[in-house]
């Protein structure tokens, strides 16, 4: 069958040259394109992609999809072998993971664009299908380029609260990663010999020593990346890499501050949660306002009671909670979208509430918000989260009552826990 298909392909007798235009090698004039440049861009991009992929899978684990109804991606089909009990230490674990995931993802974009620019002649290669092997390779490149575009584009718009699609972002971004990484793995296997040859011929560093006057095109080979009639260079290879690095650096400057905080926050002028903070105790970023969650003041007025369930059931008013032993802790709240901020929270330790409910060795805690509907209004916490000394049902922040937008009358704040699992406007705590 395969043999017959291959014969049929050969019998097609395509003209040896493609139609005039991009399918002809001479259409492409850049003197910088070639195996060395593409190899170098690929090797610069690869570690960034690995970092983004690893932090992405770690974030998936941080949601503790094995507990309660935490899983957003169906746990039976999520392909992820490594799910572990999410720790509560170090406190900055999730903030760092997400800051790295989002910032490195943004910073990788100029490198990805340059890499795609360097190989664009191959998209129009003639003949379009030479052999079954090449046909498979082209199909895998569709997964690679389409998958990369999908992952970076959905990640970037999601971090900016722009959702021009109907799919669930978490589900699509998660499975998109598998498509992209599968195609990337096979691409690396196929291209490793090409990369080794490029570095053997040119050395890893030698082309970087060439200034503009000494910049020469790489040798043309039919079916390769270099041009058969290169134009005079207008930029050296190191100049091109510096320009790409400059764009990556600019993205880092306007983005990273929303995760790192401190004086850098002011520099994050394009990031959605960047810029200077106000002076008040509650003037730090919010993931979701009370209005967006349809939490009205009436839902959390003086008649609000916290339902605590365990071996016994209690209903506690805010005054009751304030009368219990108060603990305060300096903890970050970190969003999956990458931003985070560290504040001084105070309230009742979850372990104290577990003891009060008669389950001092509780292994699980279901938290539900009074938020009437919408996603992530409930979360399940594990053993590490309940028993950390700084895991709190917070009532106050920076010496003031929580504002309604920050979860008044009470919210969860637990070290290293994803922000969306630090439920606001808590209505029920069920210890198991």
């Amino acid at each position, binding site marked *: 069958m395969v043999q017959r298909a291959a014969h049929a392909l050969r019998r097609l007798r395509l003209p040896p040259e493609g139609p005039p235009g991009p399918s002809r090698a001479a259409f492409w004039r850049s003197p910088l394109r070639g195996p060395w440049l593409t190899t170098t861009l690929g090797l610069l991009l690869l570690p960034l992609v690995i970092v983004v992929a690893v932090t992405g899978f770690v974030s998936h684990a941080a949601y503790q999809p094995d507990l309660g109804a935490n899983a957003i991606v169906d746990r039976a089909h999520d392909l992820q072998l490594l799910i572990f009990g999410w720790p509560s230490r170090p406190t900055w674990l999730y903030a760092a993971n997400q800051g790295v995931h989002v910032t490195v993802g943004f910073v990788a974009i100029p490198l990805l664009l340059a890499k795609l620019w360097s190989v664009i002649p191959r998209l129009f290669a003639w003949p379009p299908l030479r052999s079954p092997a090449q046909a498979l390779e082209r199909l895998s490149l569709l997964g690679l380029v389409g998958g990369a575009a999908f992952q970076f584009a959905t990640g970037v718009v999601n971090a*900016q609260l*722009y959702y021009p699609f109907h799919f669930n972002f978490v589900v699509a971004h998660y499975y998109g990663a598998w498509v992209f990484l599968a195609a990337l793995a*096979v691409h690396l296997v196929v291209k490793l010999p090409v990369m080794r040859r490029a570095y053997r011929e040119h050395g890893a560093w030698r082309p970087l020593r060439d200034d503009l006057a000494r910049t020469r095109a790489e040798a043309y080979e039919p079916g390769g990346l270099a041009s058969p009639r290169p134009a005079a260079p207008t930029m050296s290879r190191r100049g091109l890499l510096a320009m790409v690095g400059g764009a990556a650096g600019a993205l880092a400057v306007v983005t990273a501050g929303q995760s790192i905080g401190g004086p850098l926050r002011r520099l994050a002028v394009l990031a959605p949660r960047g810029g200077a903070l106000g002076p008040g105790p509650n003037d730090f970023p919010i993931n979701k306002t009370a209005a967006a969650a349809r939490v009205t003041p009436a839902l959390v007025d003086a008649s609000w009671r916290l339902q605590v369930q365990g071996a016994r059931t209690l209903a506690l008013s805010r005054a009751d909670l304030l009368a219990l032993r108060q603990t305060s802790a300096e903890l970050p709240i970190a969003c999956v979208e990458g931003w985070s901020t560290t504040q001084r929270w105070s309230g009742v330790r979850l372990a104290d509430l577990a003891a009060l409910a008669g389950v001092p060795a509780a292994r699980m805690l279901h938290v539900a918000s009074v938020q009437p509907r919408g996603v992530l209004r409930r979360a399940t916490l594990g053993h590490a989260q309940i028993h950390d000394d700084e895991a709190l049902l917070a009532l106050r922040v920076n010496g003031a009552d929580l504002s309604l937008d920050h979860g008044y009358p009470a919210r969860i704040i637990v070290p290293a826990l994803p922000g969306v699992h630090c439920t606001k406007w808590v209505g029920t705590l069920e210890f198991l």
Partner: protein
Amino acid sequence: MRRWRRVYGSSPLHLAAHLVAFAVAAYALRQALGGRGARDVVVWIVAGALLHDLVLVPAYSAADRLASLATRGRVRVLNHVRVPAVIAGVLLLVYFPLILARAPGNVQRATGHRPADYGLRWLIITAALFAASALLYAARVTATAAGARRRRRP
């Protein structure tokens, strides 16, 4: 083995690696398409690749060609335009939802604040990049001229 290579075009390992990758990708795609908005997933994957390859790359290549023609022979001017344009362009490409205020309602509902004027901020950054590049160019031209004068009168 030689016959396999002639018919298939590469080694059996090549085929095996591709089949494994396709199996994983097909499984993940099936899962992604099982949820809501399946049509959008397909549209986004295909449109992403097409927009990049057939719109973005030709557009910036044409712009670069125009800039090259306009500064013909004066390579240094070209790069003093090219570098700030590329950096500002990448910032716009990545941050266009905020810069072009695509979802101000979402920002207000999520953050509790009216969105900042990201468009103005981007314009200021762009102006600063071009200004810095122009200053650098002026400095380099002056230094070259001074060097040439020194060489003429040792």
